[in-house]
């Protein structure tokens, strides 16, 4: 991050003389080689994926792409590599930025052709446990998933073959491919495998909520009340107030891999999974996204329609839209007898949001292992 202004200052002071120009060029070359050889020795061997026991071991790693240190190293470079896009301007990180828990802060994201994506960029976290990817679950592995943004004309817009050709001409890359795959050949398949390896290391397990589950964080009363609302179903006839979010968003990982219609529209513009299955039951049905780091990943929902968590909670509290495909877990869920939305009190909404803020893992978004390797090299 610091290096860029340095280069700019240098540029301004020295660009006047000829000597200045060559000095600038020399420095530029040094900076560029720092880009490619940012670390002298590449770590090798099996990569230990470390996570808490309560996350469980139902992980999803294909037998033909086991995670290695050298594979993750390469994958991280590729995740931040703009040469994988048609005009060398976009990388995965353009739409998946670490500081925003690997989202981009936009409702919809522009691709290489400036055309906007049809859906909101998704947070990349704890993907090791995921089995279905995208808002409609259409990809079955991270390897399969990565090929799609790379070649989609409205995202990175470059075929895997062209990407492989471009990298085949770069020695620092071909050497890394040899270290990871045994020979210097760069292929599309090897590119997506390495990216997938890096993505599997994006583990977040140190939010205040994680620490609460470990017994090392004591929530304030407002957070505790929010947690209770989050976890319990409303039962107005018994005087129990609740929001029942955990039915779809519960568990230690704050993610359960379910697909539901959460009542955003009666007649959805984007039919979601129905587009794939052709079944009316799937109309407006989308992936129940992770709530981990949710305070950092707005705007919210598949189309980015809500800017704030207040708007999200208002939706569940007051604006559930009825339809035949509305999830049965949201039908008639209310704190008022006969109500069709939760009908939370203003103080309860604040409590719920206090709990959602407990899901922010600042170690995750600041972990240098996940950052752009070229920038950390320049910072050395």
């Amino acid at each position, binding site marked *: 991050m610091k290096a860029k202004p340095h280069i700019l200052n240098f540029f301004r002071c020295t660009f006047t003389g000829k000597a200045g120009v060559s000095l600038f060029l020399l420095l530029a070359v040094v900076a560029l080689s720092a880009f490619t050889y940012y670390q002298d020795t590449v770590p090798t061997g099996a990569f230990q994926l470390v996570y808490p026991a309560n996350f469980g071991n139902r992980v999803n790693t294909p037998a033909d792409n086991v995670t290695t240190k050298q594979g993750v190293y390469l994958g991280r470079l590729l995740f931040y590599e703009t040469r994988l896009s048609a005009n060398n301007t976009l990388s995965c990180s353009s739409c998946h930025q670490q500081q925003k828990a690997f989202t981009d802060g936009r409702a919809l994201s522009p691709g290489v052709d400036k055309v906007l994506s049809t859906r909101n960029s998704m947070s990349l976290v704890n993907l090791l446990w995921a089995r*279905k990817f995208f808002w409609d*679950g259409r990809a079955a592995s991270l390897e399969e998933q990565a090929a799609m943004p790379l070649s989609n004309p409205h995202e990175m817009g470059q075929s895997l073959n062209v990407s492989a050709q471009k990298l085949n001409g770069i020695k620092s890359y071909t050497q890394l491919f040899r270290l990871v795959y045994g020979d210097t050949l760069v292929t599309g398949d090897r590119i997506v495998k390495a990216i997938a390896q890096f993505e599997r290391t994006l583990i977040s397990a140190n939010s205040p909520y994680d620490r609460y589950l470990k017994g090392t964080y004591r929530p304030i009363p407002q957070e505790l009340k929010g947690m209770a609302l989050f976890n319990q179903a409303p039962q107005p006839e018994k005087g129990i107030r609740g929001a029942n979010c955990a039915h779809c968003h519960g568990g230690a990982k704050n993610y*359960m*891999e*379910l*697909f*539901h219609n959460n009542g955003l529209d009666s007649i959805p513009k984007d039919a979601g*999974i129905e587009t794939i*299955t*052709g*079944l*009316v*039951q*799937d109309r407006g*049905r989308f992936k129940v996204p992770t709530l981990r780091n949710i305070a950092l990943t707005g705007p919210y929902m598949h189309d980015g329609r809500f800017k704030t968590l207040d708007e999200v909670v208002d939706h569940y509290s007051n604006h559930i839209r009825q339809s*035949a*495909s*509305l*999830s*049965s877990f949201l*039908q008639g869920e209310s704190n008022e007898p006969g109500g069709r939305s939760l009908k939370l009190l203003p103080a309860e909404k604040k409590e719920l949001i206090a709990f959602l803020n407990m899901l922010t893992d600042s170690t995750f978004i600041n972990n240098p292992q996940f950052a752009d390797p070229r920038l950390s090299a320049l910072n050395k």
Partner: protein
Amino acid sequence: MKKITLVIVAVFLSLASLSGKAQTPKQATIKITGEVTTPLTITEADLQTYKQTTVIRKDRDGKDHTYAGVMLSDLLLKAGTTLGPDLKGENLTKYLLVSASDGYEVVFALAELDKAYTDRAIILANQVDGKPLLPADGPFRIIVQDEKRPARCIKQVVSLKIAFAK
């Protein structure tokens, strides 16, 4: 000239039949796969060809409902699952993984489904109180007789997979 009109008519007819097809809504099905001899795809019409049965149990509303459908074991036997006399030895380490269209999954040990082991009925229902299940619950739902919690009465079932515990 005649030929041309014929071709045009033929094209129109085929187009009409195509668009006609697109208009009938697609039907949900259930796939039976895994450790079976004959993988099956079951439609609601297929269900009618099996022996019908009913189970009465409470739903989340706390009230008794009558669910109609077929014994899960009948469907699995048809697909060639090791139930009945074959349910012994290593086959007792087999389980059934039921998946719903929302991604929810539950497991039953094969022995839980076998009449030789239990009288408790586990059925694949397509009707409740004489009517088709609601779209958000159906068209197929597993109903487990007498089980206290309804969590394994999984809704919108799309797949039944038999596997060995490894």
